[in-house]
């Protein structure tokens, strides 16, 4: 980590605030503030989370030109410059930023005073605190409470202590692009997954009880036990190497069955292309119950003898109605299945089934997505899957080697 530019705002017209917002989480900030004035103004700090806090949540201490210290408590802002002048001032502030602790500040300020070399500038040395103990600072503001304004050109610049390097690989490139990393000699292939409806891709079919028609995966097992092992497979042209992804899909039970199981399966980058729940490889699969009122999820770790249940997602709509589901993996150990009331999947989910302790070795860097039929001793099951959209927010570049 390193000091770097966390944000900077320069006024282009007169105003009472100069605000830098959207600051990332940094333990320390160094803030440079330069005030130009239109009329009489002063320069004070406010900080906040989401917006600058103008409540009486500050306490402060200052000395001007070496005079005795004065303090204010329950105040609406921190000290910075000497205030009440129509001439520029310059302040350097150091902030420490821990969410659960009061935020502390040390500020040194010089104010120009009357223009010209005949008048010495003024100094204010201050220490300040924001008594908030629940939020990180993500907004730092210079604020004027005098009758005039900050003039255009006034600036607040924030340096953060914990900025990190960022990936240099572009994301506004065509699918299939190749990135040649000159410092590591590695090559990468670009897989554009964001918002892709996988049903637009080429599908591989095995057997005839799972078909793709009209944009819908139709699992229709009928009554034949020979259906077991049928699948309809989409092989992602480039595996997603990230463990973070969101997979939306719509599910509808058309008709119930007995002794039959089928659903969607999401498999990791294993050898072979079987998609049934064969207790081999790393995979996760849906398993709607026969009544169509709930959906269970199972995951399997390669080498284990049995699957592990994620738990039931309850309250599915009755046969004939679509359910709007979302499978989310947010990191190496967490995965959840959610049910939403509309296809927009906005707001909170209506129900959720989750696991938070996946094996550290578990993969599921998605390579295959498909419908499967696992057990068909009974029959009569028909279910539809539609609008299967896969998106991944990071690391869409697949390493090919050196």
């Amino acid at each position, binding site marked *: 980590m390193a000091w770097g530019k966390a944000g900077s705002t320069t006024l282009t017209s007169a105003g009472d605030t100069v605000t830098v917002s959207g600051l990332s989480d940094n333990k320390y900030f160094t803030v440079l503030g330069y005030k130009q004035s239109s009329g009489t103004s002063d320069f004070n700090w406010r900080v906040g989370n989401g917006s600058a806090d103008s409540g009486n949540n500050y306490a402060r201490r200052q000395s001007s030109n070496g005079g005795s210290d004065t303090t204010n408590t329950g105040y609406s802002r921190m000290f910075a410059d000497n205030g009440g002048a129509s001439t520029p001032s310059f302040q350097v502030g150091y902030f420490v930023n821990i969410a659960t602790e009061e935020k502390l500040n040390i500020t040194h300020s010089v104010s120009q005073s009357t223009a010209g070399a005949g008048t010495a500038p003024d100094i204010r040395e201050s220490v*300040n605190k924001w008594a908030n103990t629940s939020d990180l600072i993500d907004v730092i503001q210079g604020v004027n409470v005098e009758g005039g304004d900050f003039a255009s050109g006034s600036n607040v610049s924030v340096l953060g202590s914990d900025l990190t390097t960022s990936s240099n690989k572009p994301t506004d490139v065509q699918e299939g692009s190749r990135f040649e990393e000159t410092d590591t000699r590695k090559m990468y292939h670009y897989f554009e997954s964001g918002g892709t409806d996988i049903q637009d891709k080429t599908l591989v079919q095995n057997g005839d009880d799972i078909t793709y028609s009209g944009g819908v995966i139709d699992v229709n097992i009928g009554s034949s036990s020979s259906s077991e092992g049928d699948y309809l497979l989409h092989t992602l042209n480039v595996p997603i190497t990230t463990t973070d992804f969101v997979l939306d899909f719509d599910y509808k039970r058309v008709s119930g069955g007995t002794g039959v199981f089928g659903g969607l399966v999401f498999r990791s980058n294993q050898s072979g292309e079987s998609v049934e729940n064969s207790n081999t490889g790393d995979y996760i699969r849906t398993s709607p119950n026969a009544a169509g009122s709930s959906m269970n999820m199972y995951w399997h770790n390669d080498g284990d003898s049995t699957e592990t249940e994620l738990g039931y997602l309850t309250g599915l709509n009755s046969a004939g109605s679509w359910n709007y589901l979302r499978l989310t993996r947010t990191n190496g150990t967490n995965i959840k299945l959610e049910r939403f009331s509309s296809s927009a999947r906005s707001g909170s989910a209506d129900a959720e089934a989750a696991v938070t302790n996946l094996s550290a070795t578990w993969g599921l860097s998605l390579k295959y997505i498909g419908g499967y039929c696992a057990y068909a001793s009974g029959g009569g099951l028909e279910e539809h899957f539609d609008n299967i959209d896969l998106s991944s927010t990071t690391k869409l570049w697949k390493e090919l080697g050196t």
Partner: protein
Amino acid sequence: MCALTYHAGRRIQGTSADAVSGGWKELARTTLGSGNTNINVTSIPDKRYYMILRNTLGRSGGGSNGGYQFNGDSGSNYAVRRSGQGGNFGTDANFSDLDLWDANSPQILGVDYLVNKSDKEKLLLSHVNDSNTAGAGNAPNRAVILGKWANTSDAINRIDLNSMNSTTWNSGSEVVVLGWDPADTHTTNFWEELASVELGSAGASLSSGTITAKKYLWVQVFFEHLGGSNPNTLWRFNSDSGNNYANRSSHDGGSEDVETGISHLDFYGQTNDSNGFINMFIINNASNEKLVIGHTILAGASGAGNAPSRDEHVVKWANTSNQITNITSTSTNGNNYGGKSFIKVWGSD
């Protein structure tokens, strides 16, 4: 920002990551190779903000004050307000230089900030540690200077540190000019992170661990106070517990507290009954005493109804054979620092 190159066949070439952009960047530096009365730093690019690290050596005899001149302007265009040892601020007006604190001492460390807008007067903030006579028996002096260059037509392109008399600074004296501008996208950061250590759980020692030796150090420390009895804070460099430190400080603008021949630095040591935050700069040459300029805020009792306190420090470690490679605060009274306490150290040569 690292450049990407695009080629036929959807081929793209670039490096693995962008470095962090927009830190303080070294713009120019002059280091004396032999004794001289002036240290001139030229060809300075126009940046909104400058941070100047000033380390002068060996001055003796003659007048005591040196000062800045900008763009070679020796006219009566400077004004200064200045305080030494926490005393009253005196002023100079219509001076021919921006008169700094530069006593007849073996060594001076100045850390200056300067705002630079061509159509506005240039404003300077400076904090100084003046080593005073060598040895831990002599506490350093401290000064605060603010000044202006009343020019409203030019951006700064040259900074001269002039002795204003015939006395000279020794070889090795230098002025380093760093710049920061809102438009900067460079990735050449002067300050390199050397340590970032969070205590994690309550403990009696907060240490940087071993750090790479650098000429200039910037240290920031947060102390979490656990309530109840206070830990003490014995800051030491390289685990030196000999009586090799001297300290001058003021609490809440009060009278100077001078300690000489002590076994540790005394930051956050006087009123450490609350969380504290320390900012310090250090000049860290092996053959010279190590000088520290520091400021501290003590949060006081929790809540906005309780004002914080402040300390101003100058310190020296009288070692003249080693660079600092470890910075540690130890509590020896049986009371611990909170687990959220942490120290970060940045450095550069």
